[in-house]
């Protein structure tokens, strides 16, 4: 691996919707490691059954479990919906600055609604 230049650090920039959503995409992505661990735990509990599954259910209905569930639901919905935006940019659509702002607010709105729905139904 050769030495490559680093990206400028975040505090250099004035926060705007575009940059905030961009860094939120990364933060939500990295924080989804918790989701990955939970998924592995779920697979383990499901495959073993009995106590292994009950431990998971007990943990998920604890206070910490609720907080984790809420954080994961918000992270995964935001990352997924903002991901659609990123893929459309990669395909060359919606790159106009006005549309970027519209889609940005759209992502915020849809994330809020979808998270709420998931939170209610997955409870």
């Amino acid at each position: 691996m050769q030495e490559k230049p680093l990206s400028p650090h975040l505090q250099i920039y004035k926060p705007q919707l575009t940059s905030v959503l961009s860094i939120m995409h990364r933060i939500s992505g990295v924080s989804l490691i918790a989701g990955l661990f939970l998924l592995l735990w779920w697979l383990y509990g499901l495959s073993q059954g009995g106590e292994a599954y009950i431990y998971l259910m007990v943990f998920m209905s604890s206070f910490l479990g609720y907080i984790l569930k809420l954080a994961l639901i918000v992270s995964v919905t935001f990352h997924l919906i903002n991901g659609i935006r990123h893929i459309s940019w990669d395909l060359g659509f919606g790159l106009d600055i006005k549309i970027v702002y519209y889609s940005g607010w759209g992502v915020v709105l849809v994330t809020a609604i979808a998270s709420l729905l998931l939170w209610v139904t997955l409870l």
Partner: protein
Amino acid sequence: MKSATHWRHQRITAFMLLFLLPWFFSTLICMPNYHFDILTHFSKPIPATGLILMVLSSIYHFVLGVTMVVEDYVPHLKVRQIIIQTIYAFGLIAVVFSIVCIINIIASGGRCS
């Protein structure tokens, strides 16, 4: 890995997850939250295939994404390499572990132990 390959694989897994994650969550929502029902469902061939694809593309997408973040923000080359190797190791273990679990789920055929 070449940067272009990294970029392309990141997009391919993202596109897969765009369908697999809503499928996974809607399956869970539509099902009673009992161990037996979930086990029986995911031991069937089509749901099990979906589950394997979802888990593997999630892990791969995660490893690719975090590697990129580390490359962007960790200045020291040696530290960066160590973190990236650790992420790869984690990814490998996660892949093997999840496959073993899913084989168990399929082999159970919906019978609780």
